[in-house]
């Protein structure tokens, strides 16, 4: 099983090489690129819970919020002190940023554990309600904590997130999820999804597997939150509300539940689509009425989603396996 590991290393090396040129990228496209990376982390990690393990979580934005605020608080309150203690330098700064990210991830994982242990004994809709409630609790808590800006929002002084960190996180998220799914744990996840009663009858501790998927998913959501906070440099509790969770669920459903390559493609597509429509609406070559229609791009975006769900309910990209098999047969 060292094929995925090779892929991971090759990809990380490529991203590292590419990140040397990130200063030359147009800032707007760079913003989109980073957003794609963050959405990949979010989609892939939620896919572990919603797709592979078959639990319906609506609280992913809540975990993202935990990661964002924990890492931002580290950067704002602790890092200046530590930097002063060790004499500063850009290496120390990067190290502290990575530390803040990981702390955000662990914070979110802890929150995932706290929510998961009592609530993962629930099934289906009930779990959705509990996770939804959790997301709202986080949002309201942040809103009322003046130390992190409360309802005004929190500004983060330094922009640390770059191409390398974002795509390193994305690669790690994919690697961990793929490896987990192909391990004994993965069999457990799939079994919980396919038939929980049968799994229990076989002596599988279903709660353990569910909590595990949940905690790993929350960890990466926290990392994504940290990346987001250190890229946009401003976080606001409203940005981590219910609708944000739904956005991530849409990525997973569109990509195909339990289909990691599909989810990655969906994350890319759903990030580019609204911006592409924005560019289309600005085209002066198009007639005015058409541009006006495209200007209401969120309506168009929703219509596209409805259309996609009607024609491909199994997820946009879940036919990919067929092509892959065909390609492999040709190779053989």
């Amino acid at each position, binding site marked *: 099983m060292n094929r995925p590991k090779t892929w991971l290393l090759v990809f990380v090396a490529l991203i590292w090489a590419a990140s040397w040129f990130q200063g030359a990228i147009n800032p*707007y496209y760079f913003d989109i690129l980073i*957003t794609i990376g963050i959405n990949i982390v979010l989609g892939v990690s939620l896919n572990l819970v919603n797709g592979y393990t078959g639990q319906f979580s609506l609280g992913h934005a809540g975990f993202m919020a935990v990661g964002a605020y924990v890492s931002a608080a580290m950067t704002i309150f602790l890092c200046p002190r530590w930097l002063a203690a060790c004499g500063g330098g850009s290496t120390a700064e990067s190290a502290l940023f990575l530390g803040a990210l990981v702390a955000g991830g662990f914070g979110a994982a802890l929150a995932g554990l706290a929510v998961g242990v009592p609530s993962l004994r629930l099934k289906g809709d009930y779990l959705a309600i509990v996770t939804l409630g959790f997301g709202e609790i986080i949002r309201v808590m942040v809103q009322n904590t003046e130390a992190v800006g409360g309802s005004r929002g929190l*500004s983060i002084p330094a922009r640390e997130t770059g191409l390398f960190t974002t795509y390193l996180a994305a690669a790690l998220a994919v690697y961990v999820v793929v490896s987990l799914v192909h391990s004994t744990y993965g069999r457990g996840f799939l079994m919980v999804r396919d038939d929980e009663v049968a799994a229990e009858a076989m002596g599988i501790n279903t709660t353990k597997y569910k909590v595990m998927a949940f905690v790993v998913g929350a960890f990466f959501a926290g990392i994504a939150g940290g990346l987001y906070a250190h890229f*946009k440099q*401003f976080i606001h509790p409203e940005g981590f509300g219910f609708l944000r969770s739904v956005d991530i669920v849409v990525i997973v459903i569109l990509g195909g539940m339990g289909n990691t390559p599909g989810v990655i493609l969906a994350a890319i597509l759903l990030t580019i689509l609204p911006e592409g429509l924005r560019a289309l609406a600005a*085209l002066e*070559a198009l007639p005015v009425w058409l541009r006006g229609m495209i200007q209401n791009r969120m309506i168009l975006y929703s219509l596209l989603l409805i259309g996609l769900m009607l024609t491909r309910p199994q997820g946009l990209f879940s036919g990919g396996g067929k092509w892959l098999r065909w390609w492999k047969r040709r190779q053989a």
Partner: protein
Amino acid sequence: MKRISFLVVTALFALGVAAIAQDEIKVGLYASLTGGQASYGISQNNAIQLGLEEINQAGGVLGKPLKIIVEDDRSTPGESATIVRKLIANDKVCAILGEFASSRSLEGGPICQENKIPMISPGSTNPKVTEIGDYIFRTCFMDSFQGTVMGRFALAKGYKKAAILTDEKQAYSKGLAHYFREYFTKNGGEIVKEQSYSSGDKDFRAQLTSLKAAKPDMVFVPGYYNEVALISRQARQFGLKVPFMGGDGWEGDSLLKVAGNSLDGCYFSSHFSADNQSPVVQGFIAKYKAKFGIVPDCQAALGYDTVKILADAINRAGSTNPAALRDAIAATKDFQGVTGKISLDANRNASKPAVVQTVGEGRYKFVENVEP
């Protein structure tokens, strides 16, 4: 797939950029044209387009037509940063007209500051906004001023016991409540009860029961129009008949439609009054009404003034060089706008009058002008 879609998008952007003619002066505008606060964003954009038309009819700026590139941020956090980057990097704008929502100005502002592109917010009242840096301006007054104005007004009316009902979700509401409380208690008033709600709530009976029990002379409700209308209706049904007071967040198109006559005799502070008979104000109202069919609200008035101030500054600067433009905006003094005489102070905040309005006979009525 990733590369292909990216190439397609890049090509589209390139086309879009190339389609814009070269000999114009370009300014960016990011506003919430859809989503939760679209009502404000749309009237802001309408008024800016009206102002733009007038500027271009009068010969544009520096002899060239002014062009405004409008982008919608869906009232969503995270989106402002992306589109401000687009406006600066792709459209190469020389200045940006910002959001009325402080949270979105705080998101877009640092990017303007980093790229040294001047940004003027027409309506962000949170003090933090202009603290971002020396390229960020505002043309409205701040939360502190509005809260204090209403505190002073309440005392002048002879009210001694006030209750406060704050929207916990909005920094705006909390800010106004803070400055109102400070002024009111320092000058002999007493806050008898404080309660809070969250924007989006529909039922306020619990809070109102508690406020009624405290027997206040008046209730300060610095919220937005959606909730204020419901609160006043429910309060009157409850028999809580004391006057309500609030800030410019009250002024939305649905306030009077929902509240009916339950807000009669209540007061709020705002940026301008349609009752003002000065030719500048009446001219603006007539033109706005002719074009959009409704009476402009305060966000429209602020947007109109802001685009005029910017055009004036570009002419005074004599170029679109960001540093020169920045200095010209900072030097704005006694600009006669719809929302009063506007001067920018050393902290890039506008010093200008507020008006207090009252509600009656299904419309807003002018009460008094409060100088800064």
